[in-house]
């Protein structure tokens, strides 16, 4: 038996696979870090590469929208809601408008309801495409990101035709919408959706059955159903 600090020219098999002795280490990630998309500071306690404990500090992007909205009129709140989620502004526009309409007891026209659903769904697809693409990007796969963004770009173009803005839509007004669909918009949307489906297939083939992708993600950050409900 040799002392621990002595060099052993013939290590046993056990020793080759022995767990490396490490101490937990505290690392500060952020507030500004290339691996985070926004500004967030994470105080992380690490055991090797596994996070044992994390204390996030999240207020860096807080802009006080609630306070701003309290001090303007109800219609003037609408542009603030664009900026809550910059990849799905329509969803937030319509969420705010529905709440105001519920308070007023106003029923909006049926056509406006349908257009709102179509708009919100388009932006939901755009938002999901961005997420899927970005996950691939984080793992070093650039190609699926390009296909997803290509799809998102089609939606952004359609949203631009509908609302006049790429991201900050401010579409809809309390009681309905500020304008009807542009001429021929429906056909353009249907055609775009076919194209998006093709792009999605490409991304799907690049990611879903990709060993690197699944090995990295399966079992990472598991949340039980109870925990998910509990955290809300």
């Amino acid at each position, binding site marked *: 038996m040799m002392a621990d600090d002595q060099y052993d020219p013939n290590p046993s098999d056990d020793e080759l696979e022995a767990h490396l002795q490490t*101490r*937990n*280490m*505290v*690392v*500060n990630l952020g507030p500004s870090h290339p691996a985070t998309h926004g500004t967030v500071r994470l105080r992380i*306690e690490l055991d090797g590469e596994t996070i044992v404990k994390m204390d996030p500090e*999240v*207020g860096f992007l*807080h802009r*006080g929208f*609630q*306070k*701003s909205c*309290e*001090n303007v009129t109800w219609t003037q709140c609408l542009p603030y809601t664009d900026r809550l989620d910059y990849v799905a502004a329509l969803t937030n526009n319509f969420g705010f408008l529905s709440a105001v309409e*519920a*308070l007023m*007891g106003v029923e909006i026209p049926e056509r406006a309801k349908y257009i709102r659903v179509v708009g919100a769904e388009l932006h939901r697809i755009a938002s999901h495409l961005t997420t899927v693409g970005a996950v691939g990007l984080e793992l070093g796969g650039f190609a699926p990101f390009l296909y997803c963004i290509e799809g998102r770009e089609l939606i952004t173009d359609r949203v631009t035709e509908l609302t006049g803005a790429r991201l900050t839509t401010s579409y809809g007004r309390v009681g309905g919408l500020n304008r009807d669909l542009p001429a021929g918009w429906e056909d353009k949307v249907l055609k775009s959706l076919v194209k998006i489906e093709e792009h999605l297939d490409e991304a799907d083939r690049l990611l879903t059955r990709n060993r690197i992708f699944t090995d990295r993600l399966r079992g990472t950050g598991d949340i039980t159903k*109870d*925990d998910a*409900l*509990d*955290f*809300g």
Partner: protein
Amino acid sequence: MSTFALDQIHAQLPEALVERYVDRAGDAWGVVKPDHIPQVAKLLKERLGFRLFISMDAVDRLHLPPEEQDPRFEVVYFLRNVERGELARLKVRVNEGDEVHSIRSVFQGANWAERFVWDFYGIPFKGHGDLRRILMYEEFQGHALRKDYPLRGRQGLIPERPLKDIFRGPGTNGVAE
């Protein structure tokens, strides 16, 4: 509109419920005593299936008509029963400085929500255990979403925190403190 949640609270914990009413959008609300909210949350979660914590917020009623100003604050809770598709709307009314009992031990999601309410309205939660500000920095004075906090309230720069907090200290890897 289903009032299953409020009916059950009324039947099983009658002393907890102060008031029931229906708001102008037609939704049912229950006003709960500040020290009974953990029991009510527990009843809703464990016996009635309201297991999804939706959100919590507060309302400062400072500029409402005088009869609605006392107590000044309302803490609102939204819990959902996923199977029944029902949303339970609860609120607790407190005055400046009064404590609300924390429901963090019942719903883990309440941890950050209660920190938010404390940060922006200054309502303390008893038994939370880790009630720090969440979005504002700890040196911030006052509570920004109170109606008497000025819209353009500016506060001076704070002194830089010591380097020891930011980088790993020598020798201990920052753990032993």
